[in-house]
């Protein structure tokens, strides 16, 4: 049953998500062509023709907009999809399936998370493609590759206080927790909003504002209590890791994880004990 749920969830969201990705791929191709054209003109000719300049400027503008749209539209779409399939008319079908409410929710959350991760991967690939165009492929030269390997091997640890692999793992974990936190914040707001009779969307907004305020108040208190001690010990800060794993940052991260878990629990309680499709 779990496999079937994932199959339909991906199938139902794929159309829009792939369309969003398609726009980015198109914009990346344009900007790569535009940047490589400008790079070539810059080397071969003194003056870059206005047409090339215009094309490059337009492609960069479209690229920046599509990058912005990639994350915002994906995120907004996944949240709307959650609302539509859980609490609007389609929710009648979703919640009469012979599946545990927890399983239903987990499938929606994991599917949304996978799309967010794919979005980030696509973003990274897009930036890489842009760099290839801008460097006219020199990014692949043995000189650049050698220098990169040198930085990762010898210069990374003294600056960052950790190996490149550890840093990458930290970034990936942080990204996944952030995605979960952002998704759960909206999912929990929507789940609380459905408790309201007649004004469910307004209720969801109100719940979202309250959740956000609670999160900000907790974060401010944590910074006030722990932040000062970290800054007072600034002489001890030598590498990036000293900042990253300072008491203030560790407490912030722990609270962030606990807050995400709390949002998840709220969602599950709403699904299992307070479902209200009136």
């Amino acid at each position, binding site marked *: 049953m779990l496999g079937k749920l994932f199959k339909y969830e991906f199938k139902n969201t794929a159309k829009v998500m792939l369309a969003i990705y398609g726009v980015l791929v198109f914009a990346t191709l344009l900007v790569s062509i535009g940047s490589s054209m400008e790079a070539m003109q810059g080397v071969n000719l003194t003056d870059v023709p206005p047409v090339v300049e215009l094309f490059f400027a337009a492609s960069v503008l479209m690229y920046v907009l599509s990058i912005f749209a990639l994350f915002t539209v994906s995120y907004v779409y996944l949240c709307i999809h959650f609302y539509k399939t859980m609490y609007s008319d*389609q929710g009648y079908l979703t*919640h009469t399936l*012979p599946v545990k409410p927890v399983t239903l929710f987990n499938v929606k959350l994991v599917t949304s998370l996978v799309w967010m991760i794919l979005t980030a991967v696509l973003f990274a690939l897009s930036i890489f493609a842009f760099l290839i165009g801008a460097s006219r492929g020199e990014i692949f030269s043995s000189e650049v590759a050698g220098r990169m390997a040198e930085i990762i091997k010898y210069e990374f640890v003294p600056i960052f206080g950790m190996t490149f692999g550890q840093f990458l793992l930290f970034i990936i974990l942080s990204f996944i927790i952030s995605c979960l936190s952002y998704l759960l914040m909206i999912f929990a707001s929507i789940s609380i909003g459905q408790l309201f009779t007649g004004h469910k969307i307004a209720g969801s907004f109100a719940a979202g504002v309250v959740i956000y305020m609670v999160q900000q108040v907790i974060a401010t208190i944590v910074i006030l209590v722990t932040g000062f001690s970290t800054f007072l010990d600034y002489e001890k800060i030598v590498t990036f890791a000293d900042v990253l794993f300072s008491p203030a940052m560790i407490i912030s991260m722990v609270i962030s994880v606990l807050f995400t878990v709390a949002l998840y629990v709220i969602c599950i309680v709403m699904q299992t*004990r307070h479902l209200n*499709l*009136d």
Partner: protein
Amino acid sequence: MSTLLECKDLTKKYGHKTAIDHISLAIESGHIIGLLGPNGSGKTTLIKMINGLLTPTSGTLYLHEQPIGVESKKHISYLPDHTYLNMNQRVSEVIAFFKDFYEDFDEQRAYDMLEKLHIDPRDRLKSMSKGTKEKVQLILVMSRRADLYILDEPIAGVDPAARDYILNVILSNYEPEASILISTHLIADIENILDEVIFIQNGQVRLTSSVDDIRQNQGKSVDALFREVFRC
């Protein structure tokens, strides 16, 4: 005949408003029951609680002596009073979805009914009229071999000519040991197929009776009795 569905002291409140007020009733298997009442009487609220779409404020609900949950959803086939399918899907895709999730779904039965109604399975739901969408939903619901069919206003959105066909679909596609709970305002259209009626008003059960009893002992049709009981 055994008790299929049982609700004990069931209550649902929305803030200060009580939609269902301490209802207790039992539904036996093998019956067609009309859940009848004026607008806002609590019919749909009761139906949603039986389907697990609303959490009761208090009281209990059992199907086959098990609380409402995953198991009960395997045995209840529910038709809501509005469209609940993804309108971008084709009819064939929805049939595949039902086949994947409901073990008791009879795919062939669904395609046979679609053919009789001249509905193309390749059509998207959004391209269909309101009445055709309702027919598709009814076909999906009645293609399950469920123990309890719950139909909320199954004939409200279709023309009078199609009503007879729909009632025929309902009658010819349910298992003899199964029960059907039908909620409707159009009592005259369905009273010939009913075995029992439950009159509900202001969230309370006003009357439960067999249709034979109403006709023989009171000498009235269900429609006439309804008009008498709920006269404004």
